[in-house]
C-alpha cells in the first residue's frame, strides 16, 4: 500500500512539486545553522530596521551593497554609492555543531565585520530576519509533525476503541468528542495555555504547545475513525479473529490499524497545517514561543508595530509568507494523497 502511494505520488505532477517544496523547506530547516549567516539572537542596534541589502556583481564576484543610516528616527537607509564589500562563501562566524555531529564555525555565506548582509532586512534590534526565519522554521515546521503523531495516536486509540467496543465506551467517548468540538478551538487553546503555563518553563513552551494542540486536535480524528471502526467491526476478518479468540488489543493493532492507515496518512497530512497555524496564532498572541526562542508566529507578533505599517517595512512580514507557502503545500499534498488513496472522493470529478 505504502509503495503504491509513493509511486502514484511521484507520478502526480502536483504531488511531486509539493514533495520537492517540502523537501527543500525541511532541508533548509535542518541545515539552518549552516545556512543562516547570524545567530537569531545576534543584535546590532546600529542597523535596526535595515532594508534587505542589494547584492551586486562586481569583478565577477557578488558584492554586498553598503548602506548608510540617513535618519535614525524613521529608519531610513540609503545605499552608499560605489561602496561594497565582497560576499564570502563558507565564511567563519559563530560556532555551532553541524547536525549535532562536529563543531564548526563555517557558515554558507557572510561578510567581513563590521558590515552585515541582510538578505531579508533586519528587525527592531538589528537581528537578521533571514537567519531568524531559518531558526524559526525549526519550531514552526517540527511542531506539526510532533503534533499529529500525538493526536493521531490519541484519535486512533479513542476512535477505534469507541467503534469496536461500542455501548458505554462509545457513548462516553463520543460525548467527550462532542464537548471538545463544541468549544471554538482558539478559545480552548488560550484557556488551556493560561491554565498550564505555570507548570512549564519558558524554554519548555514548545512542549506545552504540542500538549495543548494534541488535547484539542484528537477529537475530530476520533470521530471519523469511530465511524470507520463501526463498519470494520462487522467485516469477516475481524469476526474470524474474534472467533479464534484474539485479544481485543491485538485486533485493534493488527486488523484495524492497517485498514485505517491510509485514512490516517491523509488526515495527518491535512492536519499538519492546522498545527502550524495554531502554533503561529498562539505565538502571535504572545502565548506561544517566548524570547529568546523564535518562531514564525512570534516574528509576526514583533512586526505588529505602527512603524512597520506606516513605513511599509514589508520584509518583517516574510514569516507570514513562509507560513502561507508551507500550509498551502501541505494542503495540496493532502488532497493529492486523498485522491490517490480514495479515488471516489475526488470532488465533482467525473
Amino acid at each position, binding site marked *: 500500500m505504502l509503495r503504491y502511494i509513493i509511486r502514484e505520488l511521484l507520478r502526480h505532477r502536483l504531488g511531486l512539486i509539493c514533495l520537492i517544496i517540502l523537501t527543500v523547506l525541511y532541508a533548509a530547516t535542518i541545515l539552518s545553522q549552516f545556512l543562516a549567516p547570524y545567530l537569531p539572537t545576534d543584535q546590532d542596534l546600529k542597523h535596526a530596521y535595515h532594508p534587505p541589502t542589494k547584492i551586486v556583481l562586481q569583478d565577477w564576484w557578488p558584492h554586498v551593497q553598503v548602506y548608510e543610516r540617513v535618519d535614525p528616527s524613521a529608519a531610513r537607509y540609503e545605499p552608499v554609492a560605489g561602496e561594497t564589500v565582497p560576499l564570502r562563501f563558507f565564511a567563519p562566524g559563530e560556532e555551532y555543531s553541524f547536525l549535532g555531529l562536529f563543531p564548526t564555525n563555517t557558515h554558507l555565506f557572510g561578510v567581513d565585520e563590521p558590515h552585515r548582509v541582510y538578505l531579508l532586512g533586519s528587525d527592531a534590534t538589528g537581528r537578521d530576519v533571514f537567519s531568524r526565519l531559518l531558526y524559526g522554521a525549526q519550531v514552526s515546521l517540527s511542531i506539526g509533525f510532533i503534533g499529529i503523531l500525538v493526536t493521531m495516536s490519541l484519535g486512533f486509540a479513542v476512535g477505534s476503541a469507541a467503534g469496536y467496543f461500542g455501548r458505554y465506551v462509545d457513548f462516553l467517548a463520543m460525548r467527550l468528542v*462532542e*464537548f471538545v468540538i*463544541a*468549544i*471554538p*478551538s*482558539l*478559545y480552548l487553546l*488560550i*484557556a*488551556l495555555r*493560561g*491554565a*498550564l*503555563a*505555570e507548570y512549564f518553563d519558558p524554554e519548555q513552551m514548545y512542549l506545552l504547545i504540542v500538549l495543548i494542540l494534541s488535547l484539542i486536535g484528537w477529537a475530530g480524528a476520533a470521530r471519523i475513525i469511530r465511524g470507520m471502526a463501526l463498519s470494520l467491526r462487522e467485516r469477516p476478518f475481524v469476526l474470524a479473529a474474534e472467533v479464534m479468540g484474539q485479544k481485543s488489543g491485538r485486533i485493534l493493532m493488527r486488523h484495524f490499524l492497517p485498514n485505517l492507515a491510509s485514512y490516517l496518512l491523509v488526515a495527518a497530512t491535512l492536519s499538519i*497545517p492546522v498545527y502550524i*497555524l495554531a502554533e*503561529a*496564532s498562539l505565538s*502571535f*498572541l504572545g502565548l506561544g514561543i517566548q524570547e529568546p526562542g523564535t518562531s514564525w508566529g512570534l516574528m*509576526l507578533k514583533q*512586526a*505588529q508595530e*505602527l512603524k*512597520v*505599517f*506606516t513605513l*511599509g517595512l*514589508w520584509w518583517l*512580514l516574510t514569516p*507570514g509568507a513562509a*507560513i*502561507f507557502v508551507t*500550509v*498551502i503545500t501541505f*494542503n*495540496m499534498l493532502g488532497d493529492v494523497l486523498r485522491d490517490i488513496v480514495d479515488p471516489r472522493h475526488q*470532488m*465533482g470529478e467525473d
Partner: protein
Amino acid sequence: MLAFLLRRILSAIPLLLGISVLVFLLLAVAPGDFLDVARSQPDIPAEYIQQMEDKFALGEPWYTRYVTWLGNALQGDLGRSWIYKIPVTDLLWQRIPATLLLSALSILFALSVAIPLGVLAAVYKDSLFDRISALLAYAALSVPEFFLALLAVMFAARTGWFPTGGLTSVEHEFLPFWARIGDYAHHLVLPTIVLGMGSVANYMRIMRANFLDYVREDFVTTARAKGVPEGRVMFVHVLRVAINPLVSASGFILATLLSGSILVENVMNYPGLGQLIFQALMRQDQFVVVAAVLMGCIMLMAGNLVADLLLAWFDPRIRLEKN
C-alpha cells in the same frame, strides 16, 4: 418542530454547564488572580485587598466559587468585571453586537462572492476560470487570518484609504446619523474582507462540488428536454437545490469565524467579543472570561440550530423529527 427545538435547547444545557465548569477549573489552575496588580502597588491598603478577597471568595476552592457563580448566573447575574468595574452583562451587551455584526457581514460577504464564483466555476468546469478560482480558493484557505489582518492594516496605513483599526472614528459622536452609519461601514470593510476570506473559499468549493453533482440529475435532463433555456436550467433549477449544503455548512463556518475573530479583532483593534475574551484572560478577569466564552459557545450553537431550521425550510424532504 417544537419538539425538535425543545430537544436541541435541552441538550445544550449539559454542554454549557460542562464548558463553564471547564473554564472555572482552568482559571483556578492558572496562577495568580485579578488582584495581583493591586497587591504589587504599595499605595493600595492591605485592608482593601482583604475586603476584595472576601467579597469574591478568592480564598474558597474553585468548586465553591463555581456553585456561587452558577446560583447567581441562573438569576441573570453574571458577576462584575474586576477590570472594567461594570457588570459583566453590560460589558457583553457592548461587545456581542459588534462581533455578531462582523460575523454576519463576513458570512454575507462570503456568500455573495462565493455563490456566483462557485456556480461559474462549475458551469465552466475545467476552464481557465475554474482553475484560477480553484487556485485562489486554495490560497485563501491557506493564508493565516492574522497574517491577512496584518497585511490589511499595512495596506490601510500605506494608502490611507481605510482606518487602521477600531469601529468608530474619533469624531463619531458628533456626526449626523447617516454619516455615523457611513463611518461604521468604512471601518467594517477591511475586517469583513479579512475574516470572510477563508469562508469565501470554503463556500465556493462546496458550491462548485454540489452544482456538479446536481447537473447530472434527472430533473435537469427533463428540464432541458422540455426546452427550458440553458441559462434558466443552470441558474434557476440547479442553483436552487445546490444551495442547500451551503446552509448547513454555515454552522461550521460560523465556528471558524468565531475562532478567527479573536485574532482578527486583536490585530485590527475591533471592539468585539474575541478581543474581550483575550484581554480578560490575560488579566484574569474571571467572570468576564467565563461569560464571554459561554456567549461564544451559545452563539455557535444558535448558529447551528438556525442552519438546521433553515435547511428544513429550504428542503421539504428533510424532517427534523426522526420517527
